[in-house]
């Protein structure tokens, strides 16, 4: 074979090889960027939708307060608020499925009037309060319970002021304020004359900002059987500063109901009662704290305590996107929102078909 043919063959092979590898590499390099441009515009669109949900008050603007009203257009903002990202306490409470007046996902979806998207909303305190019962010391007249209280955000300790309430049968004890660096041990002494199960309610206020609040509730046995799960005896539905306590069993008798915040507490007065439910007026405390409502009562011979927060958080409503991320574009946006002077974290997931 002449040398020129070998040269030509070598040059042609090199060119073909290079062109092919260039095509492959270019497409591999460009594809994610082209895809990202599409994704960026979708992300932008979905972010606008998330923002719209939190800045718009919906129609009718007071749909949250009236238990019979279903929104025509969906929005969670407080009507006539000057503060951006301020949410309505009742609209938020109606997202929680524990509330008797909760609106369903189908109703929200219809009111949103966007058929090509699904979404999910989570609202929770900015940091967590974890309560663990670490030891119990029983004496003839009293019992001492030792609790470990952790205030953390994603495992990082949060310095906070703590206040505790202990609720049992005809018993409400308030503690003074404790300062915690993220972990504190607390001793609760209960007389053996007090009937349980008892409830330890903890409020935590971040030292650095009084509007950053969280809470935790722990039910424990005291002169009683182990406490039953939340919602076993009552379904508590706070709305428009009125509490509806729906009885799960017909033989239930309610004794006392309390509204607790970090700075204030009050005993609630019944406004009406029937075979199925009892209503109470809720005090409107000017406090940057969620209100914890505790209702005590008897189911024949069993004493119980039930509780709910107002706004009824933490909550998560909407579509569960787990396992759907490969089939759809899902984007999460996190916001800091205000509900009744306190700050909370709100995450909105919006998803649609992959384009």
């Amino acid at each position, binding site marked *: 074979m002449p*040398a*020129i043919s*070998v*040269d*030509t063959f*070598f*040059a*042609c092979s*090199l*060119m073909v090889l*290079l*062109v092919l590898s*260039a095509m492959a*590499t*270019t497409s591999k*390099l*460009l594809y994610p*960027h082209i895809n*990202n*441009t599409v994704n*960026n515009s979708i*992300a*932008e669109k979905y*972010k606008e939708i998330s923002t719209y949900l939190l800045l718009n008050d919906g129609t009718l603007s007071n749909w949250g307060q009236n238990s019979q009203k279903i929104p025509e257009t969906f929005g969670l903002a407080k009507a006539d608020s000057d*503060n*951006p*990202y301020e949410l309505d306490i009742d609209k938020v409470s109606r997202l929680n499925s524990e509330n008797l007046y909760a609106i369903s996902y189908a109703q929200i979806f219809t009111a949103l009037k966007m058929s090509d998207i699904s979404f999910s909303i989570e609202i929770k305190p*900015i*940091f967590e309060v974890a309560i663990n019962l670490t030891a119990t010391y029983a004496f003839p007249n009293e019992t001492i319970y030792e609790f470990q209280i952790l205030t953390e*955000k*994603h495992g*990082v300790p*949060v*310095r906070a002021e703590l206040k505790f309430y202990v609720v049992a049968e005809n018993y409400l004890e308030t503690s003074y304020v404790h300062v915690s660096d993220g972990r504190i041990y607390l001793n609760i002494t209960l007389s053996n004359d007090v009937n349980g199960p008892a409830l330890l309610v903890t409020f935590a206020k*971040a*030292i*650095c*900002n*009084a*509007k*950053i609040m969280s809470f935790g509730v722990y039910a424990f046995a005291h002169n009683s059987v182990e406490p039953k799960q939340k919602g076993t005896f009552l379904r508590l539905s706070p709305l428009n500063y009125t509490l509806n306590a729906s009885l799960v069993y017909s033989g239930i008798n309610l004794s006392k109901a309390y509204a607790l915040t970090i700075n204030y507490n009050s005993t609630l007065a019944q406004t009406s009662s029937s075979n199925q439910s009892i209503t109470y007026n809720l005090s409107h405390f000017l406090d940057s704290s969620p209100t914890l409502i505790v209702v005590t009562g008897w189911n024949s011979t069993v004493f119980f305590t039930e509780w709910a927060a107002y706004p009824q958080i933490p909550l998560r409503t909407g579509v569960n996107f787990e396992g759907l991320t490969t089939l759809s574009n899902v984007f999460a946006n*996190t*916001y*800091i929102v*205000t509900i009744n002077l306190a*700050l909370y974290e709100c995450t909105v997931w919006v998803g649609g078909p992959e384009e």
Partner: protein
Amino acid sequence: MNKENKGQIRTIEAFFAVLIIFSSFAISANLTITQTITRHEDLASMGLQALVKLDSDGNLGKFIEDGNWTAIRDALNIILPAGVCFNLTIYNEQMQQINTEVISNGGFSSQQIAFTEYICASQGTVFCCYIIHLHLAVAT
């Protein structure tokens, strides 16, 4: 051209092709800018929202007047999502830095740094205006 030299020309052509193809790689690498801008906007908007919320009851201005830099750092640490690094600088009306301590939760390891500016008015008896510069990055 000599018949024997034709093969060499084709080899040179091939090297030119290599040059062209690699320059196309260089151009396509610049397409990442679009993605970066969007991330910056998200971070900047998150930072601005955090500052607005901290200032909604005048707390931020009070912390600045009291020189309570630790409280500002702690508040931002709680409010911003985990994994976001920040560095905050506060200036007076003459653009002189007034924070005497570094208000930050660590060094920036990312090259994608977002910036947001916020004007904070004090609520004290003497009116003061502060210019806050907040730099944010996602920890990598």
